[in-house]
């Protein structure tokens, strides 16, 4: 896409995504609230895999943003994002607090980016 067209095309693309995701998400929310009386609950066959959706999806979202497989082990691990993620993960585990997790993660990232590795 040429740069001029890119800016123009970004908006309809985003709106289409927003609309379709919105309709699907509302359908999921409404499903059993609407059907109740006709269906008694989530079938067990669906219930079992659904239990693993949150940890699997969340981890698949988090890790690629913290780890990029580098040319060497050292290059992979000496990354400010991974270090900040490890510190924030420990805080999340101890406090289960979203705000504390974000604050320590960002703080650690800045210390390593602007001081230690600068």
């Amino acid at each position, binding site marked *: 896409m040429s740069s001029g067209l890119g800016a123009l095309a970004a908006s309809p*693309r985003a709106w289409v995504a927003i609309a379709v995701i919105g309709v699907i998400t509302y359908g999921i929310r409404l499903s*059993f*609230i609407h059907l109740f009386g006709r269906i008694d609950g989530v079938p067990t066959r669906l219930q079992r895999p659904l239990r693993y959706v949150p940890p699997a999806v969340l981890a698949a979202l988090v890790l690629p943003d913290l780890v990029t497989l580098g040319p060497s082990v050292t290059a992979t691990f000496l990354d400010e994002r991974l270090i900040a993620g490890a510190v924030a993960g420990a805080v999340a585990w101890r406090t289960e607090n979203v705000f504390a997790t974000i604050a320590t993660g960002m703080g650690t990232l800045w210390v390593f980016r602007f001081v230690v590795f600068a």
Partner: protein
Amino acid sequence: MGGGVFDEDLLAGVRDVSPLMLGVAPFALVAGIAAVDAGLGLAEAVGMSVIVFAGASQLAALELLGENAPLAVVVGTAAVINLRMLMYSASIAPHFADYGRRLRAGLAYLLTDQAYALSVAEFDENPDRSRWRYYLGAAASLWIVWQIGTVVGVVLGAGVPDAWGLTFAVPLVFLALLVPAMKDRPTTVAGVAGGAVAVVAAGLPLNLGLLVGALCGVAAGLVTEVRVS
């Protein structure tokens, strides 16, 4: 029970949800910042927060939109993330069964992790509560904070230099949700497998790494569950 909508039950919902705002407000800020980062304007960012109103899926969709992933992958990934709300819908449905279709349709729109968890706990503990009023108090408060946070995030995101890496707050939010989600052996295995596969699959075409990682994680969790029991 008093007459208007602003009665004791509604206010109890507002009151009980307020401590959770400490986690929701920064999450909403990040949704606004991530929208700017993905090249979206204020209208699209707020449109997404109003129409989708589901943080984790919004952040994932924004990341993929920013990387120019195919629309089917953007939509499919967001849908998988929001599938968990099927459980909430089923679990809260009996509490809303006596209400009319319109009211139920409205209440469904506001269903979120926090509103669900808070309301179901309260309905069990305090059966005399007006269910819809309590739920509305909690869920509508979350909605308002979510929209305000998104707007503030868009303004912030446009003003802070890229070097600060504000979008790093996105994986941090997910991390804060991930850790409590890994509560036993099978869920932990699901998380570890999902994350590891997603890292290795990061180079897959069409940005399919996230979906492939998530599906492998779910499969690993199921296998572990069978072996443990």
